[in-house]
Structures are given as structure tokens and as C-alpha cells.
């Protein structure tokens, strides 16, 4: 059971209030029609699926109903930080 801190509500809330949004910081291509099949498939389906530090989106479904990002360790499930969409994480695999 995860206890997730919503950076919008500023509260630690139960995992069941949230829905998972997958890997964060994936930029949608500005000109999809200009991409090759490989690039488009890569954007749609291929993920880092990292073992360790993972940046991911969460949606506060039964709270403020806003998206935010979390940095989580996918082995220990510890949430190291949560931050608002549009900002960058302070903890990354490189600086841990």
C-alpha cells in the first residue's frame, strides 16, 4: 500500500485515491506525421521500465483530479518526491 503525497493538495493520501499514469517526461512529438514507424512505435509503446529510480505520472482521481509526477524506487516502492507537472525532478538515477 502506497502513501502518496499530492503536491497540489499538500496531503499524504492513500494509494486508492490515485490512478497511475505511466512513465513521466515523455514528450509527444510535435509533428507525428513526420516520424518513421520506428520512432512512432517507440513513442507509443517503448518505455524505460527502470529497475530502481522511476519518474512516473499519477492522477489524484478522487481528490483534486490533477496530474502530478513522482520519483519512486521500483524495487523498494519508496516514493522519494512528488512534484507538479511541468517541473523537473530533483532526484534522478544519476544524482542518487
Amino acid at each position, binding site marked *: *500500500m*502506497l502513501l502518496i503525497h499530492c503536491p497540489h493538495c499538500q496531503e499524504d493520501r492513500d*494509494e*486508492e485515491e490515485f*490512478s*497511475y499514469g*505511466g*512513465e513521466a517526461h515523455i514528450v509527444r512529438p510535435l509533428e507525428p506525421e513526420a516520424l518513421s*514507424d*520506428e520512432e*512512432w*512505435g*517507440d513513442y*507509443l*509503446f*517503448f*518505455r*524505460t*521500465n*527502470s*529497475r530502481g529510480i*522511476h519518474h*512516473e505520472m499519477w492522477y489524484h482521481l478522487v481528490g483534486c483530479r490533477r496530474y502530478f509526477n513522482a520519483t*519512486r524506487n*521500483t*524495487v*523498494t*516502492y519508496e516514493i522519494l518526491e512528488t512534484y507538479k507537472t511541468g517541473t523537473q525532478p530533483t532526484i534522478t538515477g544519476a544524482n542518487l
Partner: protein
Amino acid sequence: MKKYSAFSLLKNALSYHENWQKVWRSPTPKKDYDVIVVGGGGHGLATAYYLAKVHGITNIAVIEKGYLGGGNTARNTTIIRSNYLWDEASQLYDLSLKLWEGLSQELNYNVMFSQRGVLNLGHNLQDMRDIERRVNANRLNGIDGEVVSPERIKEIAPLINISRNSRYPILGASWQPRGGTARHDAVAWGYARGADALGVDLIQQTEVTGIRRKDGAVVGVETTHGFIGARKVACVTAGNSSVVAAMAGVRLPVESRPLQALVSEPVKPCLDTVVMSNAVHGYISQSDKGDLVIGAGVDSYNGYGQRGSFHVVEHTIQAICELFPAFSRVRMNRQWGGIVDTCPDACPIISKTSVQGLYFNCGWGTGGFKATPGSGYVFADTVANDHPHPLAAAFNIDRFNTGALIDEHGAAGVAH
């Protein structure tokens, strides 16, 4: 390999069962192999077995970081069926089911395959339309199945609650009589024993830490016990597939997530079939030991921790208690999680990669156990010939770029 038989049992009884041959050797790794299989679970061991048996390649090592069959092979709910919707998937799973039917004889090892039938319940009109469509598709593919009424379900599993007043009433089900269960450990052990007898080296407690390449081709693997050379490397590492792929600079479209299961205390025989329900996220059968074996849904988030969230198990238990009110008093004994590598289309990847001599068999998600024999069979063929087996061709990794996905999500009773 000494054959197991009634005679050998009798003979060994005379020496108090103290002189049985070891089931497999514990060899020191050689410097070089034709094929290295990374991952000693059911699929990896089956791959090694069929490489040796069908393709005559016996200079093989299976490298396992823990012990044989200690990952998802040991953690699943042992359900076997082949009633998938799409032609490609149903044919692959039915090949597997046909291999299951002769597996104990083939391996001279009792895998306790029990064709007790599988029910996939429908709880609303759309469920029933999907079930009818799927059963018709199955029959066109030569796979057994029928749509059954709530009354027939009650005959098959008398403890089930078919009241129209329940929260998710049972309106019918698909019934695949050839489906059933098998003993999970025995499958891994049987394949391990068979592969070992054919000369395959089973190397346990050795973790692959890198995949060495030269000029775009595989030359071997780095392990915790040093470098081992190989012309071909076949990776069958389930939840850790992305980690192993990254060692060779390959990206996979899989995400690793926790999937949980639990068993009750042993009780008297009360459920002699398998009951699954997608809508309420629960599946249940009873093991030969008497435990009720219950599978839950997959957690929504990525994780490698081999445990999941409590509310997922709680929802499953709620569903099971609604389906089987009598089980509300049964005490649960153990709960655990495994890491499943889920694909966007809920179908596996059995494929060559951009690296010459590197092959991946992964992405089985929540339903890999049933496919163990077929998966090993077609993957061995793919590795041996450096060309996809006809039944594996559609499961090439290219499909995520061409768009030729095989969308089994929800379509085929895939619990998710």
C-alpha cells in the same frame, strides 16, 4: 538419466530411498557454449529442453540467478487454457495445451496436469456477447469450448452463487473442458531433469550482469562468476526482461508490474474446476493439497519488489466471497507477488532482436504459465534456425512499429 517407474520405486524402496540418482547435475560452467539461455524458469528450461531434444543442440547452458523455477513459475496460479480470441494467440496457446496433454509421458516426470475444465464467467450482457464471440472464434480454430448457462455452471461448481440478486450476477460462462491446472514446480523440475539428461548445463546462483557484443553480434555473457562465451543468447527473464535487454542496448515495450496470489488453509475437496472472472478480477481453483488457490488482478504501477498493494488482494477476496459465499469463513494462509512483464497488447514477444544472436522471449504478462511448453517449443525453433517459428512470427517485436498488434486485452479472458 534413470527412468522413473513403478519398478524403480520398488527397487529404491529396498534401500530406504537413499540411493536415488540426483535429479540434475551441478556443473561448473564451461568457457563456451553454442547457446546460453538466461533465466531458469519454466520457459527457459523448456527452451533448453526443446533445443536439445528437437534441434540436437546440446552444448547449452541455462544461467539462473536464484534457483530453478523460483520466479514466476513458483508464483502463478497454475491455470492452463487456450481459449484466446485471436487466431495467432489461440494457436500458440493451443499448441501449448496439446504439449501439456502428453508432457508427463514426454518428460517421464509427473507434472500433475489435470484437465478439470475452466469457466470464464460473464456478469453482464456485453460480457456474454464477448464470450459468445470468443467461443465461436475458438471453435473455428479447432479449440473446444461452449457457452454455458448459470444452471450448468451450478452443476459444474455447486458452491457457486448464481443468484440474480448479487452485485455482479452470473449470466453465463465459457467452458473449456480441456483446460485445467498443473503442478507448477514439477513443470520446471521435469524440464530441468529432461534438459540435464540431454547434456544441458544448469547453472544456478549465477547472475548475468552484462551481454558482451562484438561488431553487432553477441559473443557471450558477463556473470557474477566470470565471462561465459556463446554464439547465441536467448533471454527468458520475465519481469526482469527490460533490465537484461538494457545490457545489450535493446529496448522492449514491456512494463514490469506486481501480480499477487494467495492460498487458503487446506480444506476438503470442494471445487474440482477452475473459475475465472474478468469483471470482478478473481480466479480460483483448488490444489490437490486442498488449498484454495486465488489469483488477484495486476497492480496498476510498475514495480520489481515481488509484492503488491493490499487493496488489490482485498478486492479479489470480495469478489471470491461474492461468487462463493461459503468461502467467506476460509482463512487465508499465504500471500505473495510476482513480477509480470506486461505488453501493451497483452501478448508475448518471441523474437530476434537488432543484435545478431540475441533473442527475447518475454511479455507473457499475467498468463505465461499455461504457455510454458509451447513457448519453449517455438522459441527453441526460433533460436535454432535464427528464423521465427511459424506460430511465433506474429509475436515478433516489430509489431509495435508496424502496428500489427494482437489485442488480447480483455478479449480473451485475460485477467488484468
